[in-house]
């Protein structure tokens, strides 16, 4: 997945969970928990959104990679490559 | 303003004396009002001052001397008839209810009865079941008579003359428990209005509607509640018929809570009438059900502790107000 597409996907998913968060004005280092104040349920809903939109099942083992906006985008960008390999 | 220190009993006596002096059509009659000075010493000294024509001892027959009073009133006099205690008035019920109250109507407006009947009412003096009734609410049921209850020194002093000036029968109920109450009174008071209830203590959070002996208890309860931050308005009805509902309805519309305190029994009482008028006319302003504090529905007990238990006490009134303003638990 291209970084642009990953970013697009993250923007849409985040909008569902935290409508007030605008990905374009936030730095990649923005923490989902500390800065966006997502609780575990919000996070789980975000993961569900990302899974559904990317068509890729995200496992709990991968959660540590998904703590920031940038982390999520990078993770998504890496997904298809991993699948291709 | 000059004030004098005076008891409720002395204020009543001053009112009778004043009436005897002001209008020679006025005379006092009843059991033991003359030589004995009145069963409760209200008329003490009046026989000596005004003589037996104007202060008349009567036989022990309520029906006869109330009837004589009605006749005298029809004949142009302004009689003050004293009935010793409220229970004895039942012996004169036919005269009061069937004659005094109806003659204006039965005569097609030709004959009015300018009669004043005074009687002692209420409990609190260990006079037991046969001399402790509060039947003023009962009399308030009857069209054709006016029912007033002086609860303050000022009303004790001023209501009689207003009653004598009324062209129709007026019954004055004097709470026996108040006779020894002493206080300051404006020396110039000779007549008070007997049409309107009075706000004895203004307040914002709840309205206590009462009259007679429980006025004092209610004001004391309001003071206690003020310490708890509950600001209670206390209304003295003063006249039970015709009832001045505008005053208490106005108050309840402001405070949204009403507690009726009545020494009478609850069932079919004046407190029931007041509660009914509030729900009829101020229903949408109520924030809590109307509360009533009345006497226990038993013949009044003789022992002090049982009499106290049967009568509305300060703690009962406080609790009732708290039920309307508190969170109800």
């Amino acid at each position, binding site marked *: 997945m291209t970084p642009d597409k990953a970013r697009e996907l993250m923007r849409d998913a985040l909008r569902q969970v935290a409508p007030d968060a605008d990905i374009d004005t936030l730095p990649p280092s923005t923490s989902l928990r500390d800065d966006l104040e997502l609780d575990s349920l919000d996070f789980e809903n975000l993961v569900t959104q990302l899974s559904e939109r990317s068509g890729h099942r995200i496992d709990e083992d991968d959660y540590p990679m998904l703590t920031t906006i940038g982390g999520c985008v990078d993770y998504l960008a890496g997904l298809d490559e991993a699948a291709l390999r | 303003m000059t004030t004098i220190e005076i008891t409720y009993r002395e204020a009543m006596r001053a009112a009778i004396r004043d009436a005897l002096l002001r209008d020679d059509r006025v005379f006092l009659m009843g059991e033991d009002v003359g030589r004995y000075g009145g069963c409760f010493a209200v008329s003490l000294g009046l026989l000596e001052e005004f003589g037996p024509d104007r202060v008349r001892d009567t036989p022990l027959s309520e029906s006869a001397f109330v009837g004589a009073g009605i006749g005298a009133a029809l004949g142009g006099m302004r009689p003050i008839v004293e009935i010793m205690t409220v229970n004895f008035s039942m012996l004169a019920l036919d005269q009061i209810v069937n004659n005094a109250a109806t003659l204006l109507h039965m005569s097609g407006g030709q004959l009015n009865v300018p009669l004043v009947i005074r009687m002692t009412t209420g409990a609190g003096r260990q006079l037991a079941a046969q001399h402790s009734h509060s039947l003023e609410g009962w009399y308030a049921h009857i069209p054709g008579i006016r029912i007033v209850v002086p609860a303050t020194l000022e009303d004790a002093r001023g209501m009689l003359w207003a009653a004598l000036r009324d062209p129709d029968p007026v019954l004055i109920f004097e709470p026996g428990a108040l006779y020894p109450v002493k206080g300051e009174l404006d020396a110039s008071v000779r007549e008070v209005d007997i049409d309107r209830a009075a706000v004895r203590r203004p307040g914002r959070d709840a309205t206590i509607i009462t009259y007679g002996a429980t006025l004092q208890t209610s004001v004391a309860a309001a003071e206690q509640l003020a310490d708890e931050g509950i600001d209670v308005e206390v209304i003295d009805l003063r006249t039970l018929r015709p009832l001045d509902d505008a005053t208490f309805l106005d108050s309840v519309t402001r405070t949204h809570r009403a507690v009726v305190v009545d020494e009478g029994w609850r069932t079919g009482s004046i407190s029931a009438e007041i509660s009914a008028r509030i729900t009829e006319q101020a229903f949408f302003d109520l924030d809590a059900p109307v509360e009533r504090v009345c006497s226990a529905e038993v013949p009044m007990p003789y022992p002090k502790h049982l009499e106290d238990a049967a009568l509305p006490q300060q703690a009962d009134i406080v609790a009732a107000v708290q039920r309307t303003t508190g969170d*109800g638990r």
Partner: protein
Amino acid sequence: MAAETFEFTMPSLGADMDEGKLVEWLVKPGDKVAKGDIVAVVETAKAIMEVECFRDGVVQQVIVEPGTTVPVGAPMATFATVGAPVVVPRPEPAVTPAPAPRAPAPERPSGQPAAPSGPLIRRLAAELGVDLSAVHGTGRGGAIKRADVRQAAAEQAPTPAATTPPRPSGPSPPSGAERAARVSPYARELAERLGVDLGAVQGTGRGGAIRADDVRAAAAAPPREAAAPERPDRPAAAQEPDAAARRAEAARLATAKLMARSKREIPHYYLRTTVDVTDALAWIKERNRELPVGERILPAAMFLRATAIAAGQVSALNGFWEDGHFVPATSVNLGVPVSLRGGGLITPAIADAAALKLPELAVRMRELATRAKAGRLRGSELTGATITVTNLGDLGVELVYGVIYPPQVALVGVGRIVDRPWAVDGLLGVRSVVTVTLSADHRASDGATGARFLDVLGRNLSQPENL
């Protein structure tokens, strides 16, 4: 029997509502709907609400498109009846059928009536299962008359052929809904004046009655009668911060009042226990590998499950303190506080939670919390909790000493799951542990009862196969 069409109109969702914006259709032409189904989402000046359909039918034609604002009473769609008798005879008063044989009408607190209505009208509406807020009053000043209520009852009566599908909520919430229906006359008038939705007001009077103070706390803003809202030209967004701030302030005050009452009246006692949840977490993780992403079980659900089991077993902590004595609840309805984005707290209840296995409970919790955050709760979901579980573990705290929601008698607090050195069978290891607290009402129970409750809760947490 010939099919007949009827209109689905913009409902009146409050006395001060004269128009509403259709946010979303939840049905499309051809869909079959049953009485009580949520068919649309409507935004009023005060809130976004889900709107139920009051008759069985099939959606024929959608008239109003999402984003459109229409006045109350305007047709939004047409529905057709399905093989049902066209006219339901109006029952005579004397032979009004008891509501019992019917499927339960959609439970919701009586809400605020669209127009003045006396106590008799409210009672009749309750008897016939009619929601007064949806009744059109034909009396003086729009007052609702008995005939209006009967008419509404006749319109919503189910046809013999149709059966209303059972709602998932299980038994109706216990006394919550009834309590909410008791409103002092002055409070009702005040609510109308201040534009307060009575359905959302917590009553603190006798038997849970709503009184003027409760309405004032809910209003928290000066009366709005001064200026009429200039709705037409102002974009909706411009109004929102104002409305949101007012709602937030009202919510803060409502919480303040309830919690102050709790601490004033309830002699709380507190117990705590620390439980090893290593096995439970491993078990959940294993389960989650198989479950669809959207149905993954959060540890929070595990605590709800353990609490539901404990509350079912130790019934002395599941119910209400009312009028000087404890009234046990007939089912376990778990109150679950949900923090809202932008502040504030809302506590919906999961009805009959003890009957749900962990995976179902997890899904139900997620669904409820998600709707709570989106402002999509139904009124009935806000009442009826019999015990509350508060979980602050997400925020990093290890221990919660919670304040009980009156008239409930117990609250379970869950802290953060932390890794700690921990002895198991005489050997020291690193285990995941969590501290669970119980706040309980000493009027309703004693420490020993509370201890038994925590013990059952803890044992279930450490033996996840029980969950």
